[in-house]
């Protein structure tokens, strides 16, 4: 279908969960790296030729090792390493030589969703847009969000909620702003408003970071604006802003088109009202005949920024905060368990056959217990994910938490709404509530923490 898929699997934002050893793309969600959700989705839709862009060499090595071990023979993946801190736009700039298809589908590696990417691509093709963004309804934060993740992460999760302006048909994007960046008022361009005459501003939609770009336009923008760092913050708003006066872009667009047919299709939309008012504009075919020289006489050139709004029944979330991490873990084993790829037992949970449970230990519904994990007696696990080869003592309570691999938990611990990374050791009678524990950390016996992030350097 002449589409190329780029998965952006960078990011080190989620301190303390993410470390050098575990890049963000490999964070386990229900005991599978988060990247696998995107790759599975793409594979399922017959997209087998992918480019995965990872920030940093070491992370790239880790990711490519994982991909080649998991998806060998199934996917054809090129892993590209880009320097850290170049941003999403920079990452695409770095790999622009590898892009050769007509359109590029850019997917964020931390996306967990079941929206068919084909829908985005189809909307893109249908309108011959320069960019099409996938929007989904913003997740309603789970009940366990009481003061979680702390104020530290506030700054780190911008754009969680977007302010998005759409035309009445909900097909075109007129304005987009990250919710965190909007202080009090938003500024909407008068020209766009005048052209559309009616604008719908939504706060309940989230930009899911799945974009379809026209390659020529994307590369033009990236080349002409060297300072652009991020697709979301720079490129997309720029395209949206300039959609009624795309002096720079139209040349690129036209040179890319092979034949005056598609050119003319764009010429039809000379009237901005025609462009925006209704998609069912009868394409008036005299304009077909005009060709490139006909378009030269035009005063206004435009391009289209489209959106595809996912159905409310579809699950869509981004792992871009610690809160989101717990939420997604909960959802993937709970409401959206078709994503996890596990077959759930009659009790609505997944217990690996090699896991050993002590006597009187209960594992409630919506739980996942990885292989080789040992649990002592009288434990209780509710709505939690426990990784592989964990050793859990007796009388341990785990509620709404994520425990990664190789964690040792002493007797009598109580873990509530927390995230415990790999190789952590909890000694006896530790009580954790809404905490994050960095990999390899040792929590001393009897300590109690509430809403804290436990990391080595903090300890030192």
């Amino acid at each position, binding site marked *: 279908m002449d*589409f190329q898929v780029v998965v952006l699997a960078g990011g080190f934002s989620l301190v303390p969960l993410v470390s050098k050893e575990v890049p963000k793309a490999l964070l386990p969600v229900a005991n599978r790296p988060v990247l696998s959700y995107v790759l599975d989705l793409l594979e399922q*839709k017959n997209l087998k030729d992918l480019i995965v862009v990872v920030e940093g060499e070491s992370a790239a090595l880790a990711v490519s090792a994982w991909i080649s071990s998991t998806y060998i023979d199934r996917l054809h993946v090129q892993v590209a390493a880009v320097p850290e801190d170049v941003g999403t736009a920079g990452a695409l700039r770095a790999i622009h030589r590898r892009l050769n298809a007509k359109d590029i589908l850019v997917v964020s590696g931390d996306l967990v969703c079941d929206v068919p990417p084909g829908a985005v691509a189809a909307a893109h093709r249908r309108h011959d847009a320069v960019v099409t963004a996938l929007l989904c309804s913003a997740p309603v934060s789970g009940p366990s969000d009481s003061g979680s993740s702390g104020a530290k992460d506030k700054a780190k999760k911008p754009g969680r909620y977007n302010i998005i302006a759409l035309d009445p048909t909900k097909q075109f994007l007129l304005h987009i702003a990250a919710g965190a960046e909007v202080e009090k008022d938003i500024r909407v361009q008068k020209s766009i408003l005048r052209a559309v005459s009616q604008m719908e501003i939504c706060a309940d939609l989230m930009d899911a970071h799945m974009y379809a770009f026209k390659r020529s336009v994307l590369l033009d923008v990236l080349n002409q604006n060297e300072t652009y760092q991020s697709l979301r913050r720079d490129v997309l708003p720029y395209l949206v802003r300039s959609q009624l006066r795309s002096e720079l872009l139209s040349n690129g667009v036209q040179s890319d088109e092979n034949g005056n047919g598609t050119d003319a299709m764009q010429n039809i939309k000379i009237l901005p009202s025609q462009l925006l008012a209704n998609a069912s504009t009868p394409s008036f075919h005299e304009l077909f005949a005009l060709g490139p020289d006909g378009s030269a006489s035009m005063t206004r050139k435009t391009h289209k920024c489209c959106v595809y709004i996912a159905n409310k029944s579809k699950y869509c979330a981004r792992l871009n905060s610690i809160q989101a991490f717990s939420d997604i873990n909960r959802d993937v084993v709970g409401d959206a368990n078709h994503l996890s790829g596990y077959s759930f037992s009659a009790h609505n949970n997944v217990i690996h056959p090699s896991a050993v449970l002590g006597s009187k230990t209960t594992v409630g519904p919506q739980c996942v217990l990885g292989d080789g994990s040992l649990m002592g007696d009288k434990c209780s696990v509710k709505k939690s994910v426990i990784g592989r080869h964990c050793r859990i003592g007796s009388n341990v309570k785990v509620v709404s938490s994520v425990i990664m691999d190789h964690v040792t938990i002493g007797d009598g611990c109580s873990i509530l709404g927390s995230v415990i990374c790999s190789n952590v050791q909890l000694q006896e009678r530790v009580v954790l509530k809404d905490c994050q524990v960095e990999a390899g950390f040792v929590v001393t016996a009897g300590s109690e923490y509430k809403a804290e992030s436990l990391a080595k350097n903090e300890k030192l």
Partner: protein
Amino acid sequence: MDPRRLPRTVTDPKVRHVGFFAPVGPPDESMSSPPRQTTLSPPVAGYSLSPVMIPPPRHLSSDNAPLSPLIAADSFLPVGSYNPSEFSSPSATEDFSEDNFSKDTGWVLNENSGKAALKQNTHAASGLTPVITNEGPPMEAQKEQPPASSKPKKEKTTKSERRALQEAQRTAKAAANAGGSKKSAAASAVVNSANANTKKVAKAPPRKKDSSSVAASEKKGGDRQTDKDRKKDIPHPRMQFDDEDQVEKAKKRSVVKQTESRNRVELFRHLPQYEHGTQLLDLESKFFQLDTVHPAIYAVGLRFLTGDISGGNARCIAMLQAFQESIKDYFTPMEKELTRDLPTKINGYVSFLIQCRPLSISMGNAINFLKHKIPELPSTMSESEAKASLLSDIDRFINEKIILAEKVIARHAVTKIRDGDVLLIHGSSSVVEMIFLCAQELGKQFRVVIVDSRPKLEGRMLLRRLLGKGISCTYTHLNAISYIMHEVTRVFLGASSVLSNGTVYSRVGNASVAMVAHQFHVPVLVCCEAYKFHKRVQLDSICFNELGDPDDIARVSGKEDIKYLNDWASIQNLQLLNLIYDATPSDYISMIITEYGMIPPTSVPVIVQEYGEHLLI
């Protein structure tokens, strides 16, 4: 300039068929049908059968040929213009079983002529009784025979019509067979009711007796036919969607999953009626799986489906350009020939496009053009040359047959616009728009009345464009047509297709505009490019039509508060019918303007014959 024929009375059968439930008066004598049928139909109609049931006597002989020695001797074939498949397929099984029934009675009549036959006949169908008593039994057999005048007409039936007829008969027979075997026990219970159900029962025994072997052989033929169809991989353009077998087979082939809508309009069951929302979603989610479909074709299909591209010319051009794209990217696979392999590819694309939206007749013509071009390529030609030749052929088609044709039509039509004229247009037609712009450039003083109709309201865009050009306009809706027609001096209509009996097949509503204009003695000029002409004959807009999304008429655009019909699908006894096209009888059309000149509707066959072949060169 007034080639109109004698105006018909309101009892014109065509009008009756559009209205469908209107009571029927005596038919006009000016009808060009065999006299037999004029004597037959009034009594039938008098029993207020639905009009679909009127034709049976006409087909009496059509199915008879293999059965009755008497008729076979006459070597009579069905008359072209009364092709039953054209005429009366609203609910084919029911209809054709009726057809068969009359045939069977005819058989009985021929064998046991005399009073006994008459008696049986009166028992079988009360509808026929008056005729028989009037004409007397000995006359009846005579009546069965076609009048000699119909013979020349036989020659006129085109291949496609004959084929459609044949197929219709086949389906009817298959249906009748199934019905017969089921109900043969109850067959003796012949009742005097006009109910089609009981008629099915009635016809069962004779059919079993004498025509089963014939039917069997026919059936075999049918299977062969479907095999061929499968190979071609294109759903038959005139597929009857009330035939479950055909629908099942088509479903297996189809790329796009289509859910049939629940509240289907009974009369239009033979047309595809799908849930419109689901198609798009399915197509979208399959975006990357449809490897066989070229991206350009996919995009065009998607735009057809969503209505982004509408209008005959625009759709045709978009399709041809998508074909160009796909031909550019085409490479002949190893050990295959371009002239053999490319047509199958294109067939696949065409079937994909049909699933997105049924093709218009003009698009069918364009596809035929392309398909004729491919085998003509010399085998010595290299692949790149062959591709270049095809591309330039398509370009030429677009330029000459569509764009240039429009310019020529505009030049012709402008001569019919005088200063002070008030011109009426319904909907939005690209040719007519061009005519107006042309007239404006020539400095003619005129006013335009744009008549629009829901649900598409295409006239608004046209209005905006015309106003932008400085043409003074009046905008009104179809409801006000009789009011506005007083001021109008010319009516310009576009057309989706012009059929060889002069019928104009176009956007729904055009027929009523033409009729009102005719009543007001306003000339109706239909502007249509010659590539849209088709040799088919169509008398009503029921047999072949397209059904749009019924939700469109339930919704009022811009008025979200009007939602009385929001959950209409859950109302059991409500069906919404959103027809896309209608057929305007030639009597209401003063003139058809093509690039070959201005012709009366009666001369359409000339264009089809003289220039139809020319299309393919």
